[in-house]
């Protein structure tokens, strides 16, 4: 796989992506949608995922570019 960042960075981003897929594309998504949570709750969860993303990338430097 072509990479410009260390393997750990790539691994962390894949984990984040899988987390997002889990929240949105699995039966778990069907479950939380059927619970009719407060309308702003999905946005809060979205914000939490973005904070995790910020934590993953904040120390990264693209190599060789």
């Amino acid at each position: 796989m072509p990479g410009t960042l260390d393997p750990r960075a790539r691994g962390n981003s894949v984990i984040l992506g899988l987390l997002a897929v889990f929240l949105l594309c699995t039966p778990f998504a069907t479950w939380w949608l059927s619970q009719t949570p407060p309308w702003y709750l999905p946005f809060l969860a979205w914000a939490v995922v973005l904070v995790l993303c910020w934590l993953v990338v904040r120390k990264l430097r693209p190599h060789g570019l």
Partner: protein
Amino acid sequence: MDFNLSTLFFSAAAYLLLLFVIAYGTERGWLPRAVAHHPVFYVLALGVYATTWSFYGSVGFAERYGIAYLPIYLGATIAFLLTPVLLMPLLRLARDQQLTSLSDVFAFRYHSQAAGVLVTLVMLTGILPYIALQIRAVAESSQWLAGGETTVHFLAVVFCITVAVFAIIFGARHVTPREKHTGLVVAIAFESLVKLAALLVIAWVAMSLAFDGPIGLNRWLADNPERLEAFYQPALDGPWMSLLFLAFAAAFLLPRQFHMIFTENLKPGSLLKASWGFPAYLLALSICIPPILWAGQVLQPGTGPEYYVLGIAVLSDSPLLVIITYLGGISAASAMIIISTLALASMTLNHLVLPLTRARPRQDLDLYATLRWTRRALIALMIAAGYYFFLMLDPGEGLVDWGLISFLAMAQFIPGVVGVLWWARANVWGFIAGLLGGTLVWLDALFLPALVGTEPFFLLGFPTAPESPTDIYGLATFWSLSFNALLFAAVSTLTPQTGPERQAAEACRDLGHPMTFGTLVADSPAQFVVQLAPVTGDEAARAEVGKALNDLGLDWTENRPDRLKHLRDQIERNLSGMMGPVLARMIVDERLELDHSVSPAHTQNIRQIEERLESSSSRFRGLTAELDRLRRYHRQILEDLPLGVITVTANQRIVRWNTAMQQLTGIPAADALGNRLEDLPEPWGRLLGRFIAFGQPHAHDQAQVPGDGTRWLSLHRTRIGEPGKGRTNDSLMLVEDVTELRVLERELAHSERLASIGRLAAGVAHEIGNPVTGVASLAQNLREEDDPALVRESVEQILEQTRRISNIVHTLVSYAHAGGTEEAPPDPVSLRAAADEARQVMVLSRRGKEMEFDNRIPEHLEVLGDGQRLVQVFVNLFSNAADACEQQGRLVLTARERGDRIIVRVADNGPGIPASALKKVLDPFYTTKPAGQGTGLGLPLVYNIITDHGGTLDIESDVGGTTVTLEFPSP
């Protein structure tokens, strides 16, 4: 509240003008460069993703499908969360190979002009509904605000003309898509802020008007739980998953997204910030939709749900808010059209117009102006085509429905992207088959039904007719991508992959430049200009070669073949940024030819191969990594050798110049590599060139090094072998600095000379004593002598004796002073004369006087060398013979020519050298004499002197005497 149409028009025009001023001012430096290049502008500029679909259409979509409006933003979020593994590799590929569009990427990866053409056609067809959506949104919103005075079509035409003018002004000022549009990025960032601000304000106003604030909204939802259920329920039944996937693909494959993410990227670090920054922007944008939806349902502003935004602004009774909101919509539409047409114009020019019409820039045309005007014409044409689609598509469908048609078209490129990033085996046949298959399903299921009203074709229940209209998106997505992926995988597996395709796949994955093999026909950058000019024009050819030289840090005098190959590759990359990779490759292959009939030795590609290995080494695994370590280890051995190592090709190009050579010559490897030997500075070029021409495997030479005096060098050479193929014409040279050894030898020779003089001291004293005694006697007689004749005779005898003394002293002094520190250039030396001079020195000693000398060396025999050193040779040989013979010793000297050699024999009639000693007589400090009588350096010194003269020494001895044979090369 109605607005005058002219008010709306002028406010829109003024806003667009403001955007232009921002862009222009940024590029003129009104905004400091550090500020303009800040990542925040890049991240905000990605907000061009949010068009009128987001500004108006999302509310309408949420009204029908509830929270299912959110996947359009969540899918994009997933794509950006995967930035390190998805977007960053694409960015690096685009930067490395100067690829400015998705068509460029696929044309490069699959090494196919057809791939570029097909991608461009699909992209053009797929994006037109999206452009039509923007035109419709602006026209309908304008019509509603103007109170329905004017037809939508007229408004659409006015908008199309206005935005076309600005699109051409904004985007087609630069010559090539590879040039960054910093001003445009800042302007689009400003536009994103306007959109977001307008929506946030409208959401707040909506909550205030309908619910008295956010708390009121929550209370209203609590009192009306069916509203929340209606918000979530459609997502359970609707196209949630397919929308997620479509948005994931669109986030980086839409032309405007690709352009902003990759082509306009100035710093890769900005993309890392965008991985969370851009989704945060989308979050802020999308969180406004539910409050606006519910407020609109409560307030009923007199518009359809898609224009609740405008309706609520009107209800606020604030004309300013209405204008701002209206401009938010204008902003969203115009940014999308400007960036999309900019990107598509370049794509169409590079992959449709130029290749298909086989239009080539001619020498008499200004290439850059031609490209600029062609792109402007294409922008106008595309906007016109968008207007046509606006007329043809059903206005009864939602704005989002038109947008989804485009999203599914973009999703057809996902399998191809897999082949770019991860699957090296994918080939052009699989890519084209998959893309055609998926596109056909897309055309059948979505595009044609929307355009001309056909029914999607369901054959044998496959795919089956959807139960509800909304299911069509899910079905169309599933079946089109299934066909696409299946054909892509199957055809790629069953068909072969070409060599260039394999190289391109490796380049995409290894992110290194594909290697070019063959010998360049051109041998200078000036010749590159001459060869390119017939195609690009003189000015453009010179500009492109100059730019490539500048990119590589080379100059116009460069003539090293490996650097010129790099220059060729860089020119291709730069042309690729201007006119696409396919056309760039065609021009470079045709005009900057490589001669493949002459297969260069591996040595010529060493530097290229090593650079490639160095750039890829971090990605080696397993056995490959071990081999690379072994390569480095062996290379380090050469670098660490205390001998200078030079490798030259058959045509004397230097391909190895190790650290010892750098230290010896003061020439860095970077200055030596690739050059010919003769191009090296003096004295090295001449010295090494002479040695190569000499043809012999060994040589001794000296070099006058500026600032360092004379260095004595020992040179060795061999031809390099290639396993299984024998010796090549490439050479390996070793250069050994023997200066210190030579100085030591000289000192040793001088010491031996002085030592031999010491041994002569007693004899010399006796020799000088005799004539001194004679002079004293004659002087005493003169005191008493009166006879003038006798006085005269005595005086003559005194003078004779003093001459004798003078000769002895002169001989001794000249022998002592011979072999000074500076070597004289070789001169013809008479062997007979040298032997005679040596005899004169020898007869000063008692034993030497008793020896019988028979010098039979012919007068004419001469050798090239140092006369005094040769005298020293004979002195040492005579001295050894005299010491060995004791009484009635006889020394016979003979010499003859044999071919190109001169053989000199010095034979005595002494007792001979014992066999045990014979093997050691040439060893330094070995002597059979008692301590203090011999240094053991005489014969070793003789041996060194003979060797320095290119000769050999041989000693034969038996009980009848010893014969020393000296062999010299003839002069």
